[in-house]
């Protein structure tokens, strides 16, 4: 599944406030909600890069942002894209010439043991520069960062977006919609369908008439609903 858009959602009931969920949308509007685990996994962002012109720039292919208050993170479509954002940052001119110690002091201002954790994993001399690491050593280095940043898988919930394939009319007015849920179809009352469309669970556009009545019509470019008697 290829995700094209993502946004933050509220935390699950019982989770701490900062444990935001992340909603991923594919091209068809189907949604995947990630909750629990660690934010690196929820955002496909193994380096835990904040929302910034770098992390959300065009070259980094981020698909949205998620977070609460001052803690907003870039969201990437998959692990590989998020991983590349971290690697490009470390290999970029800003970090490349720094020693591992100086680089980690920039990377994490909160935990001054961060460099010790990296050294414990890699066994490198903290005064070596990032530039001096060869390809294998650099791989060990970024893997150590991703380990310290914690990639912990949580819970995924898939919510597909349904299609309306037909309508029932009573005295010329639509009262039910035939909704296609994956392989099965089901008749749903108009009011319930409008509710589903409001929650973005249906491929339909909500139309509000001047007289106050509301109805659904097909999305732009889609075929009109068939009337089934």
């Amino acid at each position, binding site marked *: 599944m290829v995700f094209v858009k993502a946004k933050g959602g509220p935390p699950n009931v019982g989770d701490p406030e*900062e444990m935001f969920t992340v909603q991923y949308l594919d091209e068809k509007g189907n949604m995947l909600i990630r909750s629990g685990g660690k934010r690196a996994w929820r955002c496909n962002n193994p380096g835990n890069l904040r929302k910034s012109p770098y992390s959300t720039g065009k070259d980094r292919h981020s698909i949205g942002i998620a977070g609460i208050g001052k*803690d907003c993170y870039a969201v990437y479509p998959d692990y590989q894209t998020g991983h590349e954002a971290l690697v490009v940052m470390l290999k970029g001119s*800003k970090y490349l010439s720094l020693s591992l110690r100086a680089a980690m002091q920039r*990377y994490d*201002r909160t935990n001054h043991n961060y460099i010790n954790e990296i050294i414990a994993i890699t066994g490198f001399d903290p005064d070596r520069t990032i530039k001096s690491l060869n390809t294998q050593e650099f791989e060990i280095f970024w893997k150590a960062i991703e380990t310290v940043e914690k990639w912990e898988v949580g819970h995924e919930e898939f919510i597909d977006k349904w299609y309306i394939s037909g309508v029932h009319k009573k005295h010329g007015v639509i009262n039910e919609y035939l909704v296609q849920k994956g392989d099965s179809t089901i008749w749903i009352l108009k009011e319930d369908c409008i509710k589903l469309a409001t929650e973005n669970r249906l491929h339909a556009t909500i139309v509000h008439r001047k007289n106050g009545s509301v109805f659904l019509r097909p999305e732009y470019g889609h075929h009109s609903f068939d009337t089934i008697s």
Partner: protein
Amino acid sequence: MRKYIIFLLPLCIVFFIYAATQLCTHFHKLKVTSLELPDGSPEILVTLSGKLRLNLCSIENDPPMYCWFLQMDGPSFKIASTTPVWGYALSLDDILTMPNWFEVQLGRDKETEHFCSRHVNQQVTVKGFLFHAHTGHHHAPFLMNLKEIYQEEDGAKVVQ
């Protein structure tokens, strides 16, 4: 005369739209990129004043961690928000959307720890090199590599 007006008016409109677009693009670029120091340029030493605070900055279920912050006064914020910085700079828009846009996160080390704990919630001055938040461990839009921290009233000072 009318013929000339008919001919010139669309030209004027096109020119006006073009000029306005160029101006907007220029200001947008200025707003977005002006705070990033070009590669190879020396970092700029800044002096900022404000109130020293100790805030909780743990993430999710991690053990609680406390960090020192400087809550800048008005003139200091003006300096911080206009100083080009090392690394991946935020735009002014990004800075102002953070609820703690007026704070600078300071490092935690043994030298400054003693000074900070004696001057918590007091007015202090810091000197150092600024950079902007770009990882999840950065809890304020501005961060500082501290070179000096002091309080004028009691003369206490830490130099690194």
